[in-house]
């Protein structure tokens, strides 16, 4: 891959990275005006959070984790249970630690659902009997696929077959 192509491919990370860099520069400029450490530290911490997000974007790009989200959990009971668990934690701060006695119930539901309950089994199939390993289907595009897309699709099918052979869920 040429350096120019690499630069273009990592453009989303550059957007986040440049934004974080501009923030870092603005944070350091405070030093010329305000000798107190708090504003600089605060600004740099905020910048660091964005930079961490940018690094995550970069790592995902390097691992070719881009493109439309094709795998979806089919429901989100875990999300509701997590919300209840956080609510219980907050109520424990307001009303006392005895409220924590309620915490295990939503927590257990959230963990079980997140780990197992909301994923499709490897044997899942759609209405026509075709494997439903990757659901939903890719977005239909109103033109002939390019050779890059044909190659990517072949790679996806290969990976799906490998996961299926290993008996992995989606």
């Amino acid at each position, binding site marked *: 891959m040429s350096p120019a192509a690499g630069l273009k491919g990592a453009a989303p990370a550059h957007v986040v990275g440049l934004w974080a860099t501009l923030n870092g520069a603005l944070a350091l400029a405070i030093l*010329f005006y305000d000798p107190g450490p708090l504003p600089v530290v605060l600004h740099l911490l905020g910048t660091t959070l964005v930079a961490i*997000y940018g690094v995550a974007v970069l790592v995902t790009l390097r691992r070719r984790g881009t493109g439309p989200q094709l795998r979806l959990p089919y429901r989100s009971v875990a999300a509701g249970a997590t919300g209840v668990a956080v609510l219980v934690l907050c109520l424990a701060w307001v009303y006392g630690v005895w409220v924590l006695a309620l915490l295990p119930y939503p927590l257990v539901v959230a963990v079980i659902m997140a780990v197992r309950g909301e994923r499709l089994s490897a044997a899942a199939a759609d209405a026509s009997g075709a494997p439903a390993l990757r659901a939903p289907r890719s977005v239909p595009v109103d033109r002939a696929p390019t050779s890059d897309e044909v190659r990517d699709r072949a790679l996806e099918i290969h990976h799906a077959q490998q996961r299926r052979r290993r008996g992995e869920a989606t």
Partner: protein
Amino acid sequence: MTAETESAQQPEHRQEDVPPRSRRGTAAAWLTTTDHKRIALLTLGTALVLFIVVGVLALVVRAQLTLPDQHLVSNDFYNGLFTIHGSGMIYLVVTPVAIALGLYLVPLQVGAPAVAAPRLAMTGFWLYLAGTVLIFAGFATALGPAAGGWYAYPPLNSSRYLPGTGQSLWIAGVFIAVLGMIFQAGTVLWTALLKRAKPVTLMRMPVFTWSSIATNLMVIGAFPSLLAAMGLLAWGRVFPNIFTENLWNIAYQHLFWFFAHPVVYVMFFPFVGVVAEVLSTFSGRRFFGYRATVVSLLTFAAFSMSVWGHHMFSTGQASNDYYSLTSILLLVPAGVEYFGFLATVIGGQLRFTVPMLFAIAFVPQFLIGGLTGIMVATPVIDYQVTDSYFIVAHWHYTLAAGSLFGMFAAFHFWFPKATGLLLDERLGRWQFWLLTIGTNVTFLPMFWLGLEGMPRRIATYLPQDGFTTANVIASAGAVLIALSVIVTIANVVTSVRDRRRPAGDDPWQGFTLEWATSSPPPPTNFDREHPLPRVPSFAPLLDERAREEGEERTGDDPTEHGGLRSGGGR
């Protein structure tokens, strides 16, 4: 085929990622959904209901202030009303609408079938809802709701000076509602950056999606600071002695405003994107200065992270030079965006639909909010008007005369996409004029009140203060705003109940990808009947129409010589 062989051919498990049509309408399907559109609609619906509830609180505040020496509510309850009105509008209404609008639209505009990490987005909704319940639960407590203002400065907000469960519930509620918004913002940003359809490159994303990227970068960078601030306040509720040290009071203000200035931009950036989309659609032209606007949005967002100290000039603990300089620098990217707005409209073939009216009104009204913001970010002026009604007027021109108009432009523009139904234009125009007149009649006199010396957060005033006339005018304007909201509700109810105006897929001749799919869009956004069109630019449907018009004019059919043609079956 016998029943036995038929059952033998049935797969052991069914695909359950998309619930069957018969189950998709149930409450359980909605509440456990992973469809980004439904998660967004749940968030937007909750926020719009809260907009009405929190707006009613504002009406009580205005009723209290209409005439001097009035005591419709007690002073303590008045403090609770303006606190829940302010914090409700910011934490529970405008911010969630700004983020959830991106959650609905960004995956559609980048041609993605889903949002990244949909369960995290749904967790965001539940946390937001739980936070809302906690904040409003304060009304059911013995000492009433939180009463320390939306910024909740210590030491006033420590348990020593504001005892009672209401204040603690408010802190917990704000913490988890904002945590929920961070979750949703993270998923939308990830989708825009990494989950786009292949033809949608970064520079082919619509202006709204870019505004959403800038917004969510600010959320990631700044919102955790509020979590830290609320943590500090929570610590101070347990150990109020820490706020006898001024260090912690000032530290709280830094933590709070590091969040609270960017949140203002979070609350209007998406609406800048909305206005850009609406102006270009109804001018029949692509947005002028796309690249410059993208750069200015990102620069604007970055600068917005470094201006928080201008809220602290009067503490003497923030550098006047640095924060006033960075605040004034904001004029440059803002000017680029405004130039883009005007250059798009000038020379266009304008259609004055309801969303267009709201978008046009946004431009000058938000300008008043923005320019008075630069004024109050200048120390010499800030020292004069801080904590006066001038600040209330500036703030409401930014959020009510600005963001609210962007919000209603978005509402009228995308309501047909989300529901498949058009709203009534006549009622829409009534809503627009009532809101425009009401907003200006309510908030313009407040500038004058501030310059006359009326302080913020007072429950009443004396007849000899000279504040009566302007307050009467402001309260009359608030009635007009309330009427406009009633007209909106009537519009929505009658449109949905009667179903007389089906929208079709693209009622406005839109430019961006969401208009290429059905109304409402299918669960995974694009399907065989509505495939993703070619995306040669950030206005793909405009390109498509221009190309088809060109073909009709010249009689050229590219498919005859190996080209690709849109609109054909696959």
